[in-house]
């Protein structure tokens, strides 16, 4: 058992942990602030955007006179080559970004936990088979998988989500397998077995529950990487349709005009960077708080 699992096994413990981390770590504050900001945008972006229809990708009627305007008071982020307000598009992109990230992280975490825990608890042939599957999917890069799915299934959100889930779950399967091996050796598991509790209940109630917190922190840390990969897939045109307000796609919209209207690509890219950074800051400082080995605040002798 690592200290992480021991400390965040119950709700009160995890709240205390977050409180202490909040007091101690400026990075956690910054990260949570960014995360809440993006979450607020995801909820209200539709209403905050000055031109919601353009945000959704519809080209305005007076496109000819509005295209390629640099940032100004009227269009704080400028307009793109089709005359659409970039600010509206970027603000409305928050919802899509969060949607993709949460779908991918949630599904990967679910699948990974189940596979890892089952492999660790049941051992034998199941273990070999599940570990083999994990290794296979571990070797698949999301971006190439997205190409195959794009050809087989056509464009859309499902390509991004499915390809990312297929390439992310093995990481969680591996992590939860390692933790679950330790938990499965614990005495309370043995006692439950002796008491005649069926295996499927032990797996969920005793093993999975104790593995969850550690893997969950890992998943929070990974949210940023998921966003980066999803954006790369959308940037290459493998995922969502080219008029959707996804940040990766808006960067792609500005790609051809990078020298004449750099603002089109600049702002959505900044949003990707800041959001990913926010997720990483939260996950990172939580892990630092939980694992005292990472926390070296005092200065030594040289």
């Amino acid at each position, binding site marked *: 058992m690592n200290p992480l699992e021991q400390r965040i096994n119950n709700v009160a413990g995890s709240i205390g942990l977050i409180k202490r981390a909040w007091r101690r770590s400026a*990075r956690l504050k910054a990260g949570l602030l960014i995360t809440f900001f993006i979450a607020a945008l995801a909820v209200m972006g539709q209403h905050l955007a000055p031109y919601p229809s353009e945000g959704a990708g519809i080209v305005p009627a007076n496109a000819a006179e509005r295209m390629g305007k640099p940032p100004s008071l009227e269009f704080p982020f400028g307009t793109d080559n089709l005359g659409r307000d970039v600010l509206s598009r970027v603000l409305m992109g928050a919802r899509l970004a969060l949607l993709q990230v949460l779908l991918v992280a949630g599904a990967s975490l679910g699948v990974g936990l189940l596979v890892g825990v089952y492999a660790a608890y049941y051992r034998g042939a199941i273990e070999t088979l599940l570990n083999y599957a994990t290794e296979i999917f571990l*070797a698949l890069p999301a971006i190439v998988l997205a190409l195959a799915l794009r050809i087989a299934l056509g464009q859309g959100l499902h390509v991004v989500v499915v390809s990312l889930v297929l390439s992310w779950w093995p990481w969680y399967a591996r992590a939860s397998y390692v933790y679950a091996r330790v938990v499965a050796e614990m005495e309370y598991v043995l006692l439950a077995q002796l008491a005649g509790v069926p295996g499927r209940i032990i797996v969920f109630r005793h093993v999975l529950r104790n593995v969850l917190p550690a893997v969950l922190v890992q998943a929070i840390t990974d949210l940023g990487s998921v966003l980066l990969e999803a954006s790369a897939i959308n940037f290459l045109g493998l995922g969502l349709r080219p008029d959707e307000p996804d940040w990766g796609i808006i960067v792609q919209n500005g790609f051809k005009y990078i020298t004449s209207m750099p603002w089109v690509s600049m702002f959505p890219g900044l949003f990707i960077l800041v959001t990913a950074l926010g997720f990483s800051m939260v996950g990172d400082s939580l892990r630092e708080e939980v694992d005292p080995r*990472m926390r070296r605040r005092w200065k030594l002798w040289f």
Partner: protein
Amino acid sequence: MPLSLNYLFRRLFWSIAVLAGVTLLSYLILVLSPGDPAAKWAGNPRGPGAAKAVELARKELGLDLPLHLQLLNFLRMVFTGDLGLSIAYKQPVYSILWRNLAATLELLFMAYIIGIPLGSLLGIFSALKRGGHLDGVLQTSGLALANTPAFWLGMAIFATLVPYGFTAYGRISTNLAIATNFQIFTGLYLLDALLQLNAPIFFDVLARLLPPALAVAAYPTGVCLRIVRTLMADALLEEHVRVAVAWGVKRRTVVWRYAFRATLPGLVQVSGLAFAYSLVDAMVVEYVFGREGLGRLLFDAISVSDFRLAIGLLIVVATFYLIINTVADVAQALIDPRVKL
């Protein structure tokens, strides 16, 4: 020697098994997704020759056979190096992949030659200043570097360089290559130019390689900075480092030979993991800079639904991933005498 031949054979067998799994999985995507697999394999053709092309694809895949025979047939196609002609390029899939892999590797190697030393140096520095303001700044910039979208950074670098007369699109100036009678041996142009002592080509290739390499290097630099900082802070607390300081060993020796040495196994392991991620970055950045490479293939394959190329890419990238993992494990065993394989 902490490494056994037995281990290498087991590793090889396991890798082949994983590759077979990757192949079967991609075949299942082809067959189980809605639509006619033969049409997908032929690139969803339209027009007068379409029916013939689909019929040909059906025969090639053996779709009238039972599923297990189809799978065996497909495995044979992949492992004998015969995936047919790419629809996008009208050339054998594997030869295209081979040619473009070299371009991507060149970019990746360059990025790592920049990123790993830079990240390590900053990480060591950060660990020595731990607790201070500089440490905090470096840690946060490491996080920011690791979280920068590579394609966006590449575009930013490109847009910044253009006003200074940067026109270096692609991998090499064709005119210059013809004028200086440049020959390609390895496909790594930098190495080829060096072998032929061809200075103009060398600098031309380098000038085109450095900007994208910087964009790809951001991720390994950030990751390396953070991992070295963490491991180094641990290593500095070890008893043997303490003793060395007490004995009056020179500071530089303590830092490099005693403390940094201990971070190497972890550094190698993390670099190996980061390599797989950087490969994706490299593919996207290549597309931004208009270079040849796996990323270009990816992009070209979309418009004509080139499923064969997609399978080829999956196999090549998975192979690459397995090789890098093996190399990282072996290197770790060579560096760290406690690890036995």
